[in-house]
């Protein structure tokens, strides 16, 4: 049976149907290996570091992280703040969702804006057809890490997303400049995580490293986690360029005059910077339909991210510079 995502709340606790009751006894615990691993990692972060933060974009992966953090520390509150590096190119739906979630959880939200980094002259806005603020985020992120002296930043990156990320550690050490030294990474044995760092260094932590896109969607489905509406099929004015579908409704997405606009049913598979996130044609308007669609999909999730198509090593280069 499909259910309507809009009525859900992040505070929906364990669904009743998930707990099977034995006679005169407590329910039987059914968990999955990926969830247990992620909860374990969240707890290691809280214990091994002094000032962790959870990087929250409003996308499905960071929403999943929030749910896992909630589970790791219940009945206590999540013991670290959330931080949003705001490109200013957000889907409005995502922002409304973010603010509501933070209020429900009662956690602190820190917002740092890429626009401020541009205004301060630290970064220069890209121009042209493929202009995006995606890579500009790095400077704003590194400045925020320094400002708050964060020693661990929890992120929702997954190894299945992209081949440079497949080489990433769960605790990934970055130097003073936020750089990733891919050839000199610490080995990670069993589930032992080495969080020892020097002053100035910080660690990027990836609790859902081993999840695939389908794992995330299945988890959202099973846990009845609320996600922004742009993930579900909706009518939208779009135009097509390079075989990808772009939102025509938003000023930040560059559109040439000879690129015609049409209304189609679409949804987004990732919600990054609006200027580099393409939509897919879809009629999947419920979580059950989305999961079924992902299962049958022949295109990878990042296939709709123009930032990765810049070169074969695009992600590796961004990561070396401090992108997460």
């Amino acid at each position, binding site marked *: 049976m499909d259910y309507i995502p809009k009525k859900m709340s992040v505070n929906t606790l364990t669904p009743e149907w998930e707990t099977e009751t034995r006679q005169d006894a407590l329910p*039987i615990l059914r968990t999955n290996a990926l969830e247990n691993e992620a909860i374990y990692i969240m707890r290691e972060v809280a214990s091994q570091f002094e000032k962790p933060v959870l990087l929250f974009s409003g996308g499905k992966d960071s929403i999943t992280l929030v749910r896992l953090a909630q589970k790791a520390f219940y009945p206590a509150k999540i013991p670290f703040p959330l931080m949003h590096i705001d490109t200013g190119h957000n889907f409005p739906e995502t922002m409304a969702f973010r603010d509501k979630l933070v209020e429900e959880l009662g956690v602190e939200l820190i917002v740092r804006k890429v626009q401020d980094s541009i205004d301060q002259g630290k970064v220069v806005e890209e121009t042209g057809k493929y202009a995006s603020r995606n890579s500009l985020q790095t400077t704003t992120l590194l400045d925020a890490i320094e400002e708050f002296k964060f020693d661990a930043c929890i992120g929702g990156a997954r190894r299945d997303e992209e*081949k440079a990320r497949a080489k990433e550690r769960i605790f990934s050490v970055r130097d003073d400049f936020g750089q990733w030294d891919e050839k000199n990474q610490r080995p990670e*044995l069993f589930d032992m995580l080495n969080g020892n760092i020097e002053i100035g260094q910080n660690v990027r932590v990836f609790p859902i490293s*081993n999840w695939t896109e389908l794992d995330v969607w299945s988890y959202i489905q099973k846990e009845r986690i609320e996600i922004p509406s742009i993930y579900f099929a909706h009518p939208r004015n779009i135009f097509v360029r390079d075989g990808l579908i772009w939102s025509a409704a938003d000023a930040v997405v560059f559109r040439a005059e000879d690129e015609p606009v049409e209304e189609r049913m679409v949804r987004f598979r990732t919600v990054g910077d609006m200027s580099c996130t393409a939509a897919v044609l879809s009629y999947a308007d419920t979580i059950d339909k989305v999961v079924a669609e992902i299962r049958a999909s022949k*295109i990878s999730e990042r296939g709709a991210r123009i930032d990765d198509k810049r070169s074969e090593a695009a992600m*590796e280069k961004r990561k070396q510079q401090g992108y997460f």
Partner: protein
Amino acid sequence: MEVLKIATAGSVDDGKSTLIGRLLYDTKSLTDDKLEAIKKSSEQRGYDYLDFSLATDGLVAEREQGITIDVAHIYFSTPNKSYIIADTPGHVEYTRNMVTGASTSQAAIILIDARKGVIEQTYRHFFINNLLRIKNVIVAVNKMDLVDYSEAAFEAIKRDFEALNLKSTYAEQRVSYIPVSALNGDNVAAKTDAMPWYNGDTLLEHLEHLEAADVYEGGQVRFPIQTVIRPKTEEYHDFRGYAGKVYGGSLQVGDSVTVLPSLTQSRIKEIYFFDQTYQEAVAGSSVNITLEDDINIARGDMLVKTDELPKIEKEIRATVCWMDNKQLQPGTKYIVQHSTNKVLSKIDTIESVMTTDFSGQIEANGKLALNEIGEVRIKLSKPIYYDAYKDNKYNGAFILLDAHTNATAAVGFIN
């Protein structure tokens, strides 16, 4: 869904990446855009076949040199199971990566080139999987097409590996042999007509039949405390929960437990997972436990069943695999990270070192270098509560951290 983690080991050019690429391709796990990218790169490099290694070698240096440098994680799934492959490079100098990949895996695939047979590299792969006690080892004899799909060639390699296996220190390890051609897809996911003499499972069928049990499965239950949960809210005013992951066996409400190192005893009152309470915390679950008595417990402590105490010692003997460029010298101080504890320690003596072909032990010349495996004696500044690795994987393994650089310098298996 079940998740099975597999480590793959092979030598340079024995077709490991091709085998993985073939598994991805045949299980339809390579999406159109990724396949397109592989086609494009293969053409650019002037290859006349699809080079699947381009799907797995994620770093620029790897693609340039055509080798795998670091452990890569590759994901694919069947309707039955999710698979995670830890693809580790096979060069002599990358023992460290092989050990790393094997440490999180329930099964291992050792690739052997049918033309070359069992070589020095195979010794190394066998030894590492044996040392780490990987339950299922699959010997995939690849490039069968280049030996005319000869049964005799396959049987000869099988005999050689069986001879090697006589040295096994892990009798329960299950070793299976499968003849394949990764390039042609013979016996990878699909059965083949080319080898009518082989009646066994294909590689994928074999993987599908393996039970995806926890890596730490078996042994007595160990519950290391990661963090103490004290909400300090009105609703949970006096709540004091001990959060951690359950290793080995399981814990039940009412179980008599002993807290280490204080040896205080209590009983399990409640087992929480998120907002629900349960009767039993199964192995592998990340739970939150409350006790009947109000006792002082902190991170680093461990709950065990009262009649199943581990050893408590200040001196241990262990097999270590050295992973740092800086050599180990006796008398040097390192931090032992064991369970949720970090304890300052001193490597007292290096007793022996494994020969480079892994055929036996030789006397140590006073040092242990990168990628070497040796027996050491370690003195700790305070006792740890441990088991032998062969009895309890979780509680018998540790890592050594360099106190100056913070690097993970070695992994150890307690004897």
